[in-house]
């Protein structure tokens, strides 16, 4: 399910009278279980590519395949269902739901998936403990620091063991110890559960964990190399 194939992917944005190229004829194959980092300067197209793969944004042209599914041609309903069942997202700005506690935020996806309350609660508490937020389950996002919120967002993305995790700058607000711990967790999930990770980052510490590093600039892939983690 989680092998990704992009063909001639293009996306442009209009900013006033100016046309900005987000993705410029991207061809990319990511196999199931890969641990990929997208790197490049701001505006290079990393987030746009993540959004297109995750079905959050539709490309102007080109194809996106996830397993046998043609993502770019899915209707809104099936697309939402695909995100719910197969993809975990970590957003750059955390995007936690302010009225829910840390635990409820983590439970949100499982609740929409229809899991029983007891099972949800147990899984949510376990993953929060794993990301170092034990004892903070009942705090609302406003009562957590930026780094803690980021960890809740990560916990929410991985708690239901999706096939694919798309993470946009997941360590942006973490200190090096927390970042290392988080990347270790990603690595473990990747190795033991064969979850595919595609991470957009500027952070050299994160890049070190990647088995494959894709460099982007001006909406194009300018480098794609395997590396020892």
């Amino acid at each position, binding site marked *: 399910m989680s092998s990704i194939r992009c063909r001639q992917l293009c996306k442009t944005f209009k900013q006033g009278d100016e046309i900005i190229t987000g993705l410029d004829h991207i061809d990319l194959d990511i196999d199931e279980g890969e641990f990929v980092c997208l790197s490049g300067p701001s505006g290079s197209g990393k987030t746009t590519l993540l*959004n297109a793969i*995750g079905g*959050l*944004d539709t490309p102007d042209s080109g194809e996106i395949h996830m397993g046998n599914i043609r993502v770019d041609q899915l209707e*809104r*309903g099936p697309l*939402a*269902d*695909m*995100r*719910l*069942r197969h*993809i975990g*997202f970590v*957003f750059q700005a955390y*995007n*936690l*739901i*302010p*009225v*829910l506690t840390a635990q409820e935020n983590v439970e*949100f*996806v499982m609740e*929409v*998936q229809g899991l029983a309350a007891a099972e949800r609660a147990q899984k949510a508490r376990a993953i929060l403990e794993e990301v170092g937020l034990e004892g903070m389950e009942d705090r609302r996002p406003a009562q957590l620091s930026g780094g803690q919120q980021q960890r809740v967002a990560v916990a*929410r993305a991985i708690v239901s063991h999706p096939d694919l995790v798309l993470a946009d700058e997941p360590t942006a607000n973490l200190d090096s110890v927390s970042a290392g711990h988080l990347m270790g967790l990603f690595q473990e999930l990747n190795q033991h559960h064969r979850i595919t990770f595609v991470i957009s980052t500027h952070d050299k510490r994160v890049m070190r964990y990647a088995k494959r590093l894709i460099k982007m600039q001006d909406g194009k892939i300018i480098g794609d190399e395997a590396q020892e983690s």
Partner: protein
Amino acid sequence: MAWRNLWRHWRRTWLTVGAMIFSNGLLIFAMSLQFGSYDMMIDNSLQAYSGHLQLQHPRYLDDPKMRYAIDDIAATAARLRRELGLASISPRAAGFALASSEERSYGLQIIGVDPAHEPLVSTLPGLVKQGRYLEPGAAGEIIIGAALARNLKVKPGDELTFIGSGFDDSFAAGVVRVVGIFESGIADLDRALAQVDLAYFQEVFAMQGRGHSLTVRAQHIDDVETLQARIAALLGSNESILLRHWDELQPGLRQAIQADMASNSFMYIVLIVLVAFSVLNTQLMSVLERTREFGTMMALGLQPGRLSRLVMLETALMTALGLVLGIFVGLIINLYLSRVGFSYPGMDEVALKFNLPERIYPAISMASMTLGPTAVAVGSLLATLYPALRLYLLTPIEAMRAV
């Protein structure tokens, strides 16, 4: 989640719920009072003269001629009283005549009534302001309306002569003494109605025991339909007598009520629309400020339809709160007013003039308690359709980029 979302901005939520409570309470109060005033209006009009039901010759209502009469009317009335176990049934006979005093002559309608039973079906006997009401079996006595007495320039004790046409087209003439003058507050009655004893009427107008109507008054307006069914069952297939409902006897009354309801409905609709706009404002603001959050939910896989339902549920919860508290407030006001009544400055003067009660009592019914709040609830839910539709059409990426 919907419940918690409501209390993020508790002042705004309470303002909206407060508008609902106020409008629900006001609608319940106004409708109950309105229905109460209709009951009063109906009772007052029907009790004055026509009663709740009348038995007549089938053609008498449309063509009130002397010859369309019921035979042996006093005996029929007695039989019905006995079989229904209801005393408030009174026979009447009616004729037109020219009445003359020493100075003037006026046309009038003379009604032959049973003085023993007439006070049970009509308030007119109690409205005699000068002199007294008729005594049973007293021939040659008449009571007349106040306006007619002024026009004829007569007072209790004065004599009147009248001349009309009898059942057999013979002359019907008599000399009567005015024993009482009534003031009903109803211009038509006060200006042109007179009552004499039924037996005297039957003798003068050659009715031979006949009469034109049996007037029936139910214990309460709500009992009329049941009583109507019982009388209809007793009449069976008797084609010479037709039972008339007050709707037929006084069609103008129902029309007046319907016209009043229509004009009041406009005011109610304005109130409901105002509340609906308040809800629209609240929910639209609420949706706009949470657009990023909704984008996140959609990104995580929540179906757009479920998001719309979330907003609808928030409104439904607010509406439920407004409904329960509004009905509670409306009920408290109504219960209080049903004890002490409702009045406004100057109402006692109007009441005195038109022989109305000095206070209106609200009619607490399922309709008055639920119609208004239901309309507010439906209006509020309809007002949320637009914000819900906006949400449904959002895409995750657009929503998450929203400021």
